[in-house]
């Protein structure tokens, strides 16, 4: 067993030496999860606003669907996306399997219900009186909706952070649809921090695996710190 100390020191030396393997793995992780977030957040906000503020038939069914989707295991999502994108699948012609795009797609599917669900509970938590106060001060319908969303902005931020956290730390779906590919010259194509940890552990490279794990935790932790800092500043 490697000591935690030597893992930390290796992580540190890999980071300060800007190890090209590490950098490319981190780069793929951030790009894929960042892109998934960019697509998911507006979509989730729209769905959450509709589910939270509009009234239409089938709303409760959709809410249940969102809540169920929040807990779907990532391997299942990966499997479904894999079947859809595989050569014999309906979207096989696009040739997306084992590309970063496929990983973005599966992470989107994975995190959209989560982000929507957290945003929805933030919206539902806004005092009804806020909406009435907006009306009473001359807000149009749209302005009323925007006011409520603005009141829920800290919850929205939490949703975005939670979504990114889930995306960057999930392993099942990116492994299945990304293929964990590294170019012959040792630069990642579809290998992320999580899938790299799996590979290094299998190879017995525990220090490298732990080092990658530390980087992953630092990324997730600093995002959460940033979020709570913003929340504490209060007025924005």
């Amino acid at each position, binding site marked *: 067993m490697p000591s935690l100390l030597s893992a930390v020191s290796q992580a540190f030396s890999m980071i300060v030496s800007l190890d090209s393997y590490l950098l490319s793995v981190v780069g793929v992780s951030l790009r894929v999860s960042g892109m998934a977030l960019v697509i998911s957040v507006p979509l989730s906000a729209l769905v959450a606003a509709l589910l939270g503020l509009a009234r239409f038939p089938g709303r409760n069914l959709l809410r249940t669907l969102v809540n169920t989707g929040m807990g779907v295991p990532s391997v299942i999502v990966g499997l479904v996306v894999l079947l859809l994108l595989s050569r014999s699948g309906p979207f096989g012609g696009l040739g997306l399997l084992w590309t970063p795009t496929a990983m973005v797609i599966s992470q989107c599917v994975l995190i959209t219900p989560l982000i929507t669900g957290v945003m929805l509970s933030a919206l539902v938590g806004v005092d009804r009186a806020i909406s*009435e106060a907006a009306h*009473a001060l001359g807000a149009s319908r749209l302005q009323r909706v925007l006011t409520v969303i603005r009141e829920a902005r800290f919850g929205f931020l939490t949703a975005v952070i939670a979504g990114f956290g889930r995306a960057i730390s999930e392993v099942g779906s990116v492994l299945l649809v990304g293929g964990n590919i590294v170019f012959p010259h040792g630069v990642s194509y579809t290998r992320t921090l999580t899938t790299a940890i799996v590979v290094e552990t299998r190879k017995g490279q525990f220090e490298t695996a732990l080092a990658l794990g530390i980087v992953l935790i630092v990324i997730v932790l600093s995002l959460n710190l940033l979020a709570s800092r913003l929340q504490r500043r209060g007025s924005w």
Partner: protein
Amino acid sequence: MSSILSVRGLRFAYPGGAEALRGVDLELHPGEVFAVVGPNGAGKTTLFRVLNMFYRPSAGRVEYRFRTARDGSQLSLRRRMAMVFQDPVLLNASVWENVAYGLFLREPLPGRLRVRLHRLGRKFHLPLPATELEARVERALGEVGLSGFTSKHARALSRGEAQRVALARALAVEPELLFLDEPTANLDPPSALLIEEVIRRANRRGTTVLLASHNIGQVRRLADRAALLVEGRIVDSGPVEELFQAPASGFIKEFVGEELLS
């Protein structure tokens, strides 16, 4: 005399509830303070909500005759009114943001951006002049005696301060018609008197006020006319000095108490 608000046979029931308003008639004269008094659950808040178009009446008509409404659309009529609630409802933001809120709602995007830029610039010590919107916010805050509170967060206010911010927010939009739903409930006497003074000044500048209050002293100090609302019906109304003069109707006597009328 022409009225600014004319209400005929107004009825309203909450979904699944009993009728809260059962045929209300009311004429508001421009520039007056009109008080609605009545026991808990009489329908005062409901009446205000319907007049302020938050609820659609189930029967009856309401006519608004504002001098300055841009057109007859619901939104432009609503934008000539403002309401202060029984419990102050402030946005999760600074006092300044709260008071500016109604003004921002009426401002097209370029104007909103301009104010934001001015404020940002001044943070970095650029000598930018105050915009008209900022001047109005300052004036409204000064009016309620909270000039130094602009950057304070709304959550950090005492209840009385929050109620004053809510009043400043309504005054900032310079409404023609102002609904005040028990604006001094739960305030200590000095705060209540301060708010009364602010209401009086706004009224002198031409704002018509519809006031709900349980405080007969306050109604006598502020209102020109009053109506007694009981179980969704107006059972008595008239000039304040006549209404609260003995011998009063049985309803008034019961509501106010004999000794207060002398």
